[in-house]
């Protein structure tokens, strides 16, 4: 057995790329859930973002309009969910699952003409002296811009929730919507905004898959990434930096197990392939054993002003 061929530098570099779609989708979903809404439609929004991003990328010949269109399209799609759950007070869990079905079907129909095409992708950034730092340069300073944007987004969400008044209001809506309403805040509007933000993030995550990480369009290509994003939000106990930890941990174990196989480790493959899920469970158990961080109190409950 020789693990000498597994390079930590390359491993970390791989993890940052492979975790980005999940990270983007998860940080968006976290904001949605902090506002008190549970949207299980992440998979549907991601794949819609993937196909729209790819299509626009191919047609414009550039990845950035693709990302913008993906964010927009998924945000619009998420508002279907928003209108149903917030204005028509439909059940969030079922509506979210309906959104997943809807998105999977829609994306396949949109994507038909784009199968087998190649798209423009994002260049790796040259961060000048930073990229030249030995080890660290290759490890963290040699990625495309979206990787850094996803990290910046985590920081921004953290700062927004912690330091801004709007963030406070959003959290209030999630913790106790009746009290927030009594204080004069427009709970429904806040939540619609959060849902649209979550949709946009999921769309970006999907577009990152189809434009950078894979890159291609194929029907069903998200292959469950949206579900992992949902799990990461829970893993993080609804805290932004822990979303980052969760996404990188999950992505890390996934990449590591493939590397261990590639290096010929004598570990049963069935265990290796289940390891990302097992490790995530185990770490969450350890975290929760040390103190419970609950979900937002109004999560998933319908809100109606007359109540």
């Amino acid at each position: 057995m020789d693990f000498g061929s597994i390079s930590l530098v390359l491993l970390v570099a791989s993890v940052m790329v492979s975790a980005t779609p999940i990270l983007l989708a998860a940080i968006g979903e976290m904001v949605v859930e902090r506002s008190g809404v549970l949207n299980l439609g992440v998979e549907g929004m991601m794949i819609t973002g993937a196909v729209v991003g790819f299509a626009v990328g191919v047609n414009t010949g550039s990845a950035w309009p693709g990302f913008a269109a993906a964010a927009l399209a998924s945000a619009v799609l998420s508002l279907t969910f928003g209108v149903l759950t917030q204005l028509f007070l439909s059940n969030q869990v079922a509506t979210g699952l309906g959104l997943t079905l809807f998105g999977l079907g829609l994306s396949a129909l949109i994507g038909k003409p784009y199968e087998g095409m190649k798209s423009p992708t994002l260049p790796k950034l040259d961060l000048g002296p930073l990229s030249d730092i030995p080890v660290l340069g290759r490890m963290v300073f040699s990625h495309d811009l979206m990787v850094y944007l996803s990290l910046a987004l985590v920081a921004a969400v953290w700062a927004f929730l912690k330091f801004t008044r709007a963030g406070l209001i959003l959290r209030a809506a999630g913790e106790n919507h009746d009290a927030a309403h009594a204080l004069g805040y427009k709970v429904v509007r806040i939540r619609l905004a959060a849902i649209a933000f979550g949709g946009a993030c999921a769309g970006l995550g999907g577009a990152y898959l189809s434009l950078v990480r894979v890159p291609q369009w194929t029907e069903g290509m998200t292959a469950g990434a949206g579900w992992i994003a949902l799990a990461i939000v829970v893993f993080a106990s609804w805290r932004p930096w822990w979303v980052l930890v969760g996404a990188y941990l999950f992505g890390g174990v996934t990449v590591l197990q493939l590397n261990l196989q590639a290096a010929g480790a004598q570990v049963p493959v069935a265990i290796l392939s289940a390891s990302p899920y097992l490790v995530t469970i185990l770490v969450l158990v350890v975290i929760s054993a040390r103190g419970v961080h609950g979900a937002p109190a109004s999560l998933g409950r319908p809100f109606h002003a007359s109540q």
Partner: protein
Amino acid sequence: MNRRTLLASAAIALAAPAAMAQDEPVKAGFIYVGPIGDGGWTYEHDKARLAVEEHFGDQVETVYQESVPEGADAQRAITQMALSGADIIFTTSFGFMDPTVEVASKFPDVMFEHATGYKTADNLSTYSARFYEGRAIQGHIAGSMTETNKIGYIASFPIPEVIRGINSAYLHAKEVNPDVEFNIVWAYTWFDPAKEADAARALIENGNDVILQHTDSTAPQAAAQEAGDVITFGQASDMSEYAPSPRVSSIIDNWAPYYIDRVQAVIDGSWESQQVWHGIGEGMVEIGEISDAVPEEVRTSALELKERLASGEYHPFTGPINRQDGSAWLAEGEVADDETLLGMDFYVEGLTGEIPN
């Protein structure tokens, strides 16, 4: 819409007499395991279906159902297709075997064709492709071209089809390059582009400069292109959008000649149950163009190997070959029998690691 009212009673067992009037088109049905847009396995079967339509024109009508899960849903899908008046039904995944057998027994007048299985009946044939012949050529090119002597292999599930491919590629890489080493990653999926991309990157980062894949998406091709200095082979479809490099050649599943042949047999009334395992010679396995990235002498020898395979002069599993544990499998000059190949569940000597189970 063709609504020949065939059945009104629950007694499916007394199924439709497939009385084919001359003017009525023959109906050919196809059951797919994945979406047509998978770009690989199902995509190629559907291409062949379209070729059938093209070939026969008004004489034949085709129907299909995509993304049919294996198991209970498959049996229903096949039955409904038979009820809809199909004269011949192709079920295109191994997992459809038992459902196809079951439905075939209830519709004695409908012809069934099951891909990659081994159970037959009077109205049920099986067909499969000797992809391992194509793997031999891949192995030959890979072994000749690797500079690190490390070849990465993205495998899906540990089933005979996949194991056969690994063995065949390895034997022929080893033949031209005794120092070659295979690193196998089991992705445990047929189709997950993101995971396939990760697997390809992991292999590349571990020093493999040739990536062979037995999963369906082009994600490994893209990963290889990004890395540079890595070569790949198209799987199931040509994947020519990645030619001339990293994709230097490919194995193409070409089902069209077989499908046309069998539908013709139904039209002629000459259809008979059979078991076929076609290879390069019959055209079911095609080798995609070997690109300019391959040195001239390697290309020549690869094409020569292809000729010998096509003519049947050479069999990829010709002894002496030992099993991984060193025990003898094939003696000098002995050729593997189809029975062993069909159920192959062991590595040949020289491969490292264990087949997972």
